[in-house]
């Protein structure tokens, strides 16, 4: 049994997955309050599944809100510690890419973009074989050019469409914890993927 956690963006999302099947799932679009909602939500999952532990934990390590990334990571590491379970990481972009490609057999790939605020998007291109491009924070203008010829998904879709109305899009805004079941079995250890450095200026 695997516990998947995703709190990097607007969703507070968790799932218990066994043998590639969803055993129990919660996916709530709450935008804020992850630190309050996440652990009770996982409590509901465990109760619903009638289990007291999972054997592995996978957590979305970003990109997304720095706070949301940390809420997920802190919980994942604590569950890993308590259960003696390994804690792996996946990314927000790969979760959306995996979901879109699973739902749309006609697509060869997908361009995933999330609103990163400050006039940028977090963006990454995927083809069916996996990540086909680097993850970066870009202005939507630049991302729209990179996305040409691809179908766009993620919460940043509208920002890209505003620049280039001809882009093909799918409506899949937020990553979902249960989609961890669609990812490959080999996963890296969980490390935060902030993309941007902290806001801090050395005084003159």
């Amino acid at each position: 049994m695997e516990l998947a956690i995703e709190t990097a963006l607007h969703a507070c999302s968790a799932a218990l997955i066994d043998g590639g099947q969803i055993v129990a799932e919660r996916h709530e679009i709450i935008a804020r309050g992850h630190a309050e909602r996440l652990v009770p939500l996982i409590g509901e999952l465990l109760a619903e599944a009638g289990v007291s532990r999972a054997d592995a934990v996978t957590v979305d390590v970003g990109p997304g809100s720095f706070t949301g990334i940390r809420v997920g990571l802190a919980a994942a590491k604590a569950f890993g510690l308590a259960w003696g379970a390994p804690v792996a990481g996946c990314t927000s972009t790969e979760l959306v890419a995996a979901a879109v490609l699973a739902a749309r057999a006609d697509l060869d790939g997908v361009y995933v973009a999330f609103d990163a605020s400050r006039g940028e998007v977090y963006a990454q291109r995927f083809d069916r074989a996996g990540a086909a491009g680097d993850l970066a924070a870009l202005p939507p203008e630049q991302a729209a050019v990179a996305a040409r010829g691809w179908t766009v998904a993620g919460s940043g879709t509208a920002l890209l469409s505003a620049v280039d109305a001809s882009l093909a899009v799918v409506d899949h805004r937020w990553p979902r914890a249960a989609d961890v079941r669609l990812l490959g079995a080999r996963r890296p250890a969980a490390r935060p993927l902030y993309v941007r450095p902290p806001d801090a200026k050395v005084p003159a």
Partner: protein
Amino acid sequence: MTDAPLILGIESSCDETAAALLRGRTIVAQRIASQDDAHRIYGGVVPEIAARAHVEALAPMIEAVLAEAGVGLAEVDAIAATAGPGLIGGVMVGLVTGKALALAADKPLVAVNHLEGHALSPRLVDPDLEFPYLLLLVSGGHCQLLEVQGVGRYRRLATTIDDAVGEAFDKVAKIMGLGFPGGPAVERCAKDGNPKAFKLPRPLSGTDEPHFSFAGLKTAVLRTFQANPHAAADIAASFQAAVIDCLTDRTLKALAAAPDVTALVVAGGVASNAAIRAALTGLADARALKFVAPPGWLCTDNAAMIAWAGAERLAAGLTDGLDAPARPRWPLDPEAAPARGAGVKA
């Protein structure tokens, strides 16, 4: 004592990551990782840098503390985590960690007010300290006088209307280029100085208003240093003397408003200042009050005090749900009348 519950304490509300295991008044194991080095070049704590460091350090630290004590989570009786007030990104890391451990190990959670950690910490080291006592809480973010009536029961008698006293020490250190964190640097510098060298203001001292104010004192230090750039030691000593006068004047006023207290307690990072301790000891002695100042390590942020507050709350039947909020602001006495200009530091 082996019957006392075993409490895991977690602290991450500012720039120390800390975990401790406490049984009764015995610290079974504890670790503290200070982030001073990471923040030094910025001249102050950068919240995002702090939060990133907490999430990196906390889980391995808890594991190390459990290993050192030779216990598993199953043997822990409750998890106490700071839920505020403080830098919210860091608070969330510690609180969510505590919640997840509590759920996974099926243990009660105590969401601890960091200030209550400071307020009750003297009882961790002094079993004879009874309620009610007068607490002078002096830290980087707070400067308050509170009547501690019992666990969870506080009456605020005074707070700062501008800077906290630790903040004043830090700003003075910055003005004179003494380094970060400022408190110990100013104290060291003051050792070689003459406390009467410069006449500095004692804001609000002697007034009917019970509160503290340090902004004017800080500005006076700035002006004095600009005029006397080679007199750092004398300025530091004069500043410290002014702070001491403010603290004792306000403490006497609070004692008049809380006649039932039998002890004066000082806590918070600034309580590690030896000159301030000496002055307060003298004040308490003169009034035949017991004086308690926790040891220096217990005055700055640590997890043992959080575990202790957790133990006191658990004993009082005060535990929290896993939806307990992370709170950037959380006054100990929510009923206290707002002090003019106090804002965050109320």
